[in-house]
């Protein structure tokens, strides 16, 4: 059940781990390469069809709609669709609420990523320092949090912090303090929930990475008198760099797109929209106000930001000299 036994029990996977510890940089072409022809494309066909129809095409549509005046009147055919050029974008960036939401989203995502990485890495290191039983217990608890659907996690956390019936206010002696009333306390509550359900991924992944570091290296560092912090800083962190990059990028992507937690915990964006983030804002614009053009423009802004993050990721991967 433990991660410990895990690595030993999964033959295919542990073989995978062994091979990847020192990936050959230049490998001879696969035997099938000589006579591949159309076969790879045949294998790729289902994936490409699905991605083309349900990812690429909608992205193009998103871009197109963002240039149109597209509201309920156009959807129902009452008015002709008119080309707006950059009108929607001009409207967005002229809107102080949008700029506010954009800033909020970046700050909130950054806070979530930072908290998740710190907690996840710290607990991964902690896992390596305890015996099997506490490790199993912590691992199981984390898996439980990880497995909890975002929507049920949100409802449970709201209930835990409920001003009337929640145990947290009771335990902290906060009386009937409402966490969702104030802007910052509401964000703090959402951040806690996001942290709770996203640190396990970081913890498990980094822990798997640490276990792959040869024991001798850590032993040598310890024998040379390195402190735990020095071992982490100078030995483990550099060796874990590829994993840390992946985990960081994944966290940025996930936390930048938080939707369910905000939507459920702050009832659709908080009082007067004080807790809106881009995703929820786009949804409200499109489906609550039927401003599909504006909503699409917000979607494009998100897309561009995440694309920038991806390009940074690709650069980092390239610099590590990995071949794809």
């Amino acid at each position, binding site marked *: *059940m433990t991660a410990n*036994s*895990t*690595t030993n029990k999964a033959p295919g*996977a*542990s*073989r*995978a781990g062994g091979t990847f*510890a020192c990936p050959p940089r230049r490998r001879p072409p*696969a*035997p*099938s*390469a000589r006579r*591949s022809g159309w076969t*790879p*494309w045949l294998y*790729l066909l*289902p*994936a490409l069809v*699905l*991605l083309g*129809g*349900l990812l690429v095409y*909608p992205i193009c549509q*998103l871009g197109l*709609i963002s240039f149109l005046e597209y509201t309920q009147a156009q959807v129902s055919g009452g008015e002709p669709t008119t080309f707006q050029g950059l009108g929607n974008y001009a409207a967005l960036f002229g809107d102080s609420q949008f700029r506010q939401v954009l800033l909020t989203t970046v700050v909130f995502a950054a806070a979530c990523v930072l908290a998740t990485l710190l907690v996840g890495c710290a607990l991964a290191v*902690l896992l390596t*320092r*305890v015996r099997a039983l506490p490790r199993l*217990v*912590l691992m*199981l608890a*984390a*898996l439980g949090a990880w*497995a*909890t*659907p*975002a*929507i049920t996690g949100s*409802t*449970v956390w709201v*209930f835990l912090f409920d001003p*009337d*019936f*929640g*145990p947290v206010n009771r335990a902290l002696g906060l009386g009937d303090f409402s966490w969702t009333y104030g802007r910052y306390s509401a964000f703090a509550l959402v951040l806690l929930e996001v942290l709770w359900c996203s640190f396990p991924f970081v913890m*498990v992944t980094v822990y*798997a*990475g640490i276990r*792959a570091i040869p*024991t001798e290296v850590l*032993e040598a560092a310890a024998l040379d008198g390195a402190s735990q912090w020095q071992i982490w800083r100078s030995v483990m962190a550099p060796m874990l760099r590829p994993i840390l990059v992946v985990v960081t990028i994944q966290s940025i992507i996930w936390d930048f797109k938080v939707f369910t937690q905000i939507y459920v915990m702050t009832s659709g964006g908080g009082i007067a929209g004080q807790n809106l983030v881009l*995703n929820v804002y*786009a949804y409200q614009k*499109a489906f609550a106000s039927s401003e599909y053009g504006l*909503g*699409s423009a917000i*979607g494009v802004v*998100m897309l561009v930001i995440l694309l920038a*993050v991806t390009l940074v990721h690709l650069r980092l991967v390239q610099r590590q000299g990995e071949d794809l």
Partner: protein
Amino acid sequence: MSARTMLRIRRPGRTAAEAAALLIAAAVAFPLYWMVLSALKPAGEIQSTEPRPWTASPSLDSFRRVFEQNDFGRYFLNSLLVAGTVVVASALVAFLAATAVTRFRFRFRTTLLIMFLVAQMVPVEALTIPLFFLMRDFGQLNTLGSLILPHLAFSLPFAIWMLRGFVKAVPEALEEAAYIDGASRTRFLWQILFPLVLPGLVATSVFSFISTWNDFLFAKSFIISDTSRSTLPMALLVFFKPDENDWGGIMAASTVMTIPVLVFFVLVQRRLVSGLGGAVKD
């Protein structure tokens, strides 16, 4: 392994570390405990301003309310059907694609790989608007297909990316040996490669299962009028009322919704750590 254990024993502070680990585990597990506890509390105890961390008289009233709600069983089956279809289909499609990009050299291979990586970053929520119109144009609104297809597509890039490592790890020699023994390419693919990659598929399926099972936005946007096609998250929202939330019902429905994911996790968790390790290290 034993060397590592010895190293640990010599280090002081392990007791403190273990106490910390147990405390943190308790804190992490607490919300789930509270969820199940509240689902089992009788109505009077939930609406109490002095919540106690135990209950003397557990009752199934809240669960009964959840299951007696119109069509709840159907919502549950819908969710199961959507998530199950996505997991199986995504595993098969991703396996084929991962095989193509790892075991063959062809033009645009690197370009495709980068596209798969970039595709992971696309905020699927932003695509709700065009997808809504796409589903409407194909008459797919209010069908389970409108939930299955997008989730299937969105789970693919990550699944392909993760499976790459597992497919790569199967030695080339094995493939050559299979061909020399007269196996066809199809036979090698399904009878040799597929079983060997299965642990990776299981680890990958966790992600597609969770993202599909948890989906709230598409379920809310695409199933607009035919509630017999709704999935679980919608059933949960019924218990939120403007005046007073039915917390017992919410917690019971949350419990019902969380249990399948937990079961799934327990089933695959032994593959998960090694799976992530293998994929990420690549």
